[in-house]
């Protein structure tokens, strides 16, 4: 029934012409589960922005054990959302990923410590227990610790104890860690909802500390870009996606509802998604979709500053890891 109404609505709007042509299939693999972190893509799909571009987009949610880099190389997706550190690491390991667009201008990764533990600045980290996310999200942390001269293998006067943190704020709330990783748009809110006030927290934003790394960008395989048809598809995909992002920034309540509608797991709640849309909008606000080469340089510099066994992201300067070809065409 839903399809029929959609087709009818499409015909009524006069976009029947584009629909009659066989729409090009595009599969997008997300980095994480369905949530407002990806609002722009869901909005673009629901509001018909993809359809207008003659695209039939499938959005595949990710999860804690899904590495988008692996999905794309296995042929499970045309384009993926991932963090640049993970994308560059994959590139060095033989998955030639190229950044074609960067909807997130700034990053939401931060470290939160309880003031009551006595942490006030990075100088107080020695001897502490810190929760870190792995699965490709640990690179900024190790870069930061290396720059502070802190070992990461134990809690003596020049080291920190690292915990593999699950994707929740529990370790801080339960006092198992002095500091934990949070995203501004997700776990930070969990801490607040657990009854800890912002005044009780010390927050370190990776970006402000100078260890920011570009977060959610769009990546494709280098070989695919040689195909003009594929390139054309990506141009239309990026154009529609950015339209979706900008729409989400301006219509946050609607965007949150669209995300809820698309959440097949039924796990997300509207209040939380609304909060998340608001926070994510702050991160996408400065971007028109084109990657700023300066941001790229900072990410690479940060990664290279702390190469070690724990932080094997990249060992040499990557080449050809991003392109403006798609965004130039999509945005002009």
């Amino acid at each position, binding site marked *: 029934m839903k399809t029929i109404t959609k087709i009818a609505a499409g015909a009524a709007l006069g976009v029947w012409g584009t629909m009659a042509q066989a729409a090009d299939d595009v599969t997008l693999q997300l980095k994480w589960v369905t949530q407002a972190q990806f609002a722009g893509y869901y909005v673009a799909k629901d509001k018909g922005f993809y359809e207008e571009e003659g695209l039939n987009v499938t959005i595949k949610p990710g999860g804690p054990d899904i590495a988008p880099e692996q999905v794309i190389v296995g042929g499970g997706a045309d384009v993926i959302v991932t963090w640049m550190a993970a994308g560059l690491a994959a590139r060095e390991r033989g998955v030639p990923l190229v950044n074609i667009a960067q909807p997130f201008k700034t990053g939401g990764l931060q470290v939160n410590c309880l003031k009551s533990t006595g942490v006030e600045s990075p100088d107080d980290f020695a001897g502490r227990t810190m929760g870190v996310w*792995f699965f490709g999200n640990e690179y900024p942390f190790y870069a930061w610790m290396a720059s502070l001269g802190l070992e990461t293998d134990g809690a003596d006067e020049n080291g920190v104890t690292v915990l593999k943190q699950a994707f929740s704020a529990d370790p801080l709330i339960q006092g198992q860690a002095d500091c934990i990783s949070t995203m501004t748009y997700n776990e930070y809110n969990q801490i607040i909802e657990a009854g800890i006030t912002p005044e009780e927290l010390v927050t370190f934003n990776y970006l402000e500390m100078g260890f920011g790394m570009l977060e959610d960008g769009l990546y494709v395989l280098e070989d695919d870009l040689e195909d003009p048809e594929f390139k054309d598809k990506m141009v239309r995909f990026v154009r529609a996606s950015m339209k979706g992002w900008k729409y989400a920034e301006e219509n946050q309540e609607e965007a949150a509802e669209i995300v809820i509608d698309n959440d097949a797991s039924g796990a997300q709640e509207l209040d939380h998604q609304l909060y998340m849309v608001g926070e994510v909008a702050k991160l996408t606000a400065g971007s028109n979709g084109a990657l700023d080469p300066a941001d790229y340089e900072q990410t690479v510099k940060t990664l290279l500053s702390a190469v070690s066994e724990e932080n094997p992201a990249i060992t040499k300067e990557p080449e050809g890891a991003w392109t403006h070809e798609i965004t130039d065409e999509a945005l002009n």
Partner: protein
Amino acid sequence: MGWVVFAFGAWIAGWLVNVRLARGPVSWWASLAAPLVFGATLLAVWEGVVRGFAINQVLLPAPTAIAARMGASADLLWADFVQTVLKGALSGYVIGCGAAFLIAVAIDRFPFLQRGLLPVGNFVAALPVIGMAPILVMWFGFDWQSKAAVVVVMVFFPMLVNTVQGLQAADAMQKDLMRTYAAGYWRTLVKLRLPCAMPFIFNGLKIGTTLALIGAIVAEFFGSPIVGMGFRISTSVGQLTLDLVWAEIFVAALAGSAFYGLVALAEQRVTFWHPSQRT
């Protein structure tokens, strides 16, 4: 192309050798050689296919790459082994099996416990690991103690059920005989009923070995210090160092087989009198 031919050739050669072995006279070395040849063939075909079709190492690394990684990261693998197998799995196994054994004896002694405790054991067995693990991490912290707790939960029930069953294995005639010898409860238990229960108890112990390893590894997925097999497997996938993941899997398989083998060996020694051990 050459590698594909190599894979095909290795398959044919391995097959022919094993057919010969199977048709030849039965001997000790032939029964040992057959699985070895099969395993070697599998590895050769794997290597040939991965190289021949240029499969990205992110999807499937070649056996030689995995072996090279095992050599290069031996220290890391050993530290993970100590953390997960020796600390997490073994201590949980000993505690879980030990507790289940004692409670089984208690259940056998006091019938009212049978009605009260067995359903609880049943209930615990039905708890899914992925539900329990985060809670146990919350209770016992991130280190191996919480992993041991998960293992305790996992091995407890098979051990309990088997032991309870085993304690009922001695038949009435044998018990009557003990009674005519004026043997009390404890003597009957030690001299007759526990030996009769041994095949059952070892069943529980054997099932527990693999469960213990699974429990300890999976529990590390839900928060852990930065050491351990489960930690390494889950994080190395994210770093796309799949050769390290396979190296860990290999170590886990080896440890699991050795653990099971040791318990099976002990069983052979203890229950030599049982019909199933006759050759």
